[in-house]
């Protein structure tokens, strides 16, 4: 005797949800999983693009090479400093901007629209714009700074290791802070006005209100924005590529840029893939935290 006969007729096999999911799964397979599998395959081979007839399997050879590659470690170190500086300063500027935009003033709508502009511009345009602003001969920054007496003579911002790195950090902060501003502003608008009024009646200072009401209320929003931005900044190379190409020397090399240059300049797709996989493994930790948070929010 079957279970069905005990408990009544068996429920029909419900295929509909799977059919609805199928197109998305196929697209994901084609545009995400297949390229990832291809990248893993390439990382295990000495794949040089202009030698398509000779692609020997070398196992973990590319990864062993990577561990002994001075430029890899240099790029990794730059990446860590780069992510820390860019994300933290973007967040700080974004938070201040969001708090200002949450105030009541007559041109608030215009200000909220204008603040989006850096975020809406293509990265290549941003890279070129800042490159010319920093230019030694005709750059507007040198001109303004000299006129205001801040510097005696023009500075070659992109020609010295430290100033080149920091110059790009500034450009990236400018590009990315609107994301934090808009996201945090959305969070701020969910805070109950009664809470703030109660704090005012209790005599809380502005700082105390920020510390004990505002920030805890938008902690989830901030955490999600920080995680997302960390992933994006860690992956980004376009602005660096346009502004310095990694130079001078290796001073603005980051891990994704190094992988890109190895693949598309050296045509070493095997080694470039190994570098990309290493970056992915490092980022998986951040992705894992993000996915867990997202799942928790869905459960709630």
């Amino acid at each position, binding site marked *: 005797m079957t279970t069905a006969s005990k408990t009544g007729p068996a429920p029909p096999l419900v295929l509909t949800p799977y059919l609805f999911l199928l197109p998305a799964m196929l697209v994901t397979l084609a545009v995400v999983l297949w390229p990832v599998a291809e990248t893993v395959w390439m990382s295990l081979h000495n794949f040089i*693009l*202009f*030698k*398509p*007839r000779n692609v020997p399997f070398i196992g973990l050879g590319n990864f062993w090479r990577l561990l002994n590659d001075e430029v890899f470690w240099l790029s990794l170190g730059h990446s860590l400093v780069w992510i820390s500086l860019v994300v933290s300063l973007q967040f700080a500027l974004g938070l201040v901007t969001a708090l200002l935009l949450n105030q009541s003033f007559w041109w608030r709508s215009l200000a909220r629209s204008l603040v989006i502009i850096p975020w809406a511009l293509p990265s290549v345009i941003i890279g070129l714009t800042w490159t010319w602003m920093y*230019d*030694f*001969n*005709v750059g507007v920054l040198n001109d303004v700074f000299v006129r205001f007496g801040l510097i005696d*003579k*023009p*500075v*070659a911002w*992109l*020609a*010295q*290791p430290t100033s*080149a790195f920091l110059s790009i950090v500034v450009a990236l902060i400018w590009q990315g802070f609107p994301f934090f501003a808009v996201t945090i502003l959305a969070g701020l608008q969910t805070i109950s006005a009664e809470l703030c009024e109660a704090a005012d009646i209790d005599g809380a200072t502005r700082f105390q209100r920020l510390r004990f009401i505002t920030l805890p209320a938008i902690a989830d929003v901030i955490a999600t924005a920080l995680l997302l931005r960390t992933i994006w900044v860690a992956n980004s190379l376009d602005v660096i590529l346009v502004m*310095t*190409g*990694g*130079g*001078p*020397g*290796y001073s603005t090399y980051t891990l994704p840029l190094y992988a890109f*240059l190895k693949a*598309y*300049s*050296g*045509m070493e797709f095997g080694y470039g893939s190994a570098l990309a996989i290493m970056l992915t493994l490092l980022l998986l930790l951040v992705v894992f935290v993000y996915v867990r948070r997202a799942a928790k929010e869905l459960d709630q």
Partner: protein
Amino acid sequence: MKRRHFIQAAGATALSAPLMAPMVNTAKAQAATVRWWYHFDNPQNTPNELIAQFEKENPGIKIQAESIPWGGGGDYYNRLFAAIVAKNAPDCAMVKLSSQAQLLEMDALEPLDGHIKNWAGKADISDNIWSVNKAQDGKQYYLPLQYVVLYLYYRADWLQAAGLQPPKTYEEFLAAAKAMTKGDVSGFGMRGGGGGHDNWAPFVVGNGATFAKGGMVGEQALAGNRFYVSLARDHKVTPASAAADGFRQIVDGFKAERTGMIIHHIGSANELVAALGDKVSATPVPRPANGKGWTMFGDESNAVLSGSKNKDAAFKWISFLSGSTNNVAFNKLTGQLPVTTSGASSWTLHPKRFVDASAASLPLAGVLPDSPKTADFARTVWPTSMQRALLGQITPDEMMKTIEAHYNG
């Protein structure tokens, strides 16, 4: 139609089919669409007029011209190599000698010797240009299209004020650079960023360095490199931004009267004259005391890709572009020099002094080695090691060891 007549007609058709095949194939060839990849420095220029003229003269052949971003060469060749690997390459494309070895390694080029032998325009291109473009296996894969030669732009008025002649030797060059370096002005707009290897080569390859084994670490090669790096580090006759400067920066610096000399080719002449008028002139790059020297021959050719199914039609198109009057029209779009002798004799696009400087530089002109490693040398190895040497992170000799290792390590 009676049954017997039908069978007779069908039989005749079947028998004549093999005889018809060439006619069908000819019709197919006539109906070919040729995909051609090109890049122009000024994207506002288009080859549409030339295409219309060609299609009018060759009814049945359609040209599908695709403008590919140049991106310093990297973008263009990444796309071309990827298209070849993906078996979606164009029928023909603009190509440079520095990538010939890589394309041959990929079996991507069609030998053109047979076509060129029967091409009426062959004699209008000088033997020098044919031989420079020949591959190491002795075959001709490239059909020359345009060329430039790097020379030295200088501020004629500043040199005159200093009582100096246009520099011919390295020593005269240094003296001129020192004389022009005053306040915000630097004598030489050094290009330490991408593409700067062709500014460096006249001082290093020109002084005896070669790309053969040991050729970058010989005494003459090391001395040439030390001299070039010393222009920035010791003599300080270059802008502080030299390590990061690319093409646009050196040209704009020169136009803004912040530098007195730069190395580039005739492609910049009209832009510089528009800004500076008669104050700017040109002369071949400085040479060592023995007078030999070396400068970069900037080539551009068309090639037919081996995977093309329309090779004959593709050759018709590229030979059309290299023909006398068409080649002149084409080079007016790119701002470079025609490869045809007849075109060069009637060339009026640039002021004569720059055409003369190009012609005077031809005896010194050469190309980078026909090696798969050359592209990476130009795009990454040279700029990175040069910048590190300019910053003092490595010595000039260590820079040369890096280049030696890249080619011969």
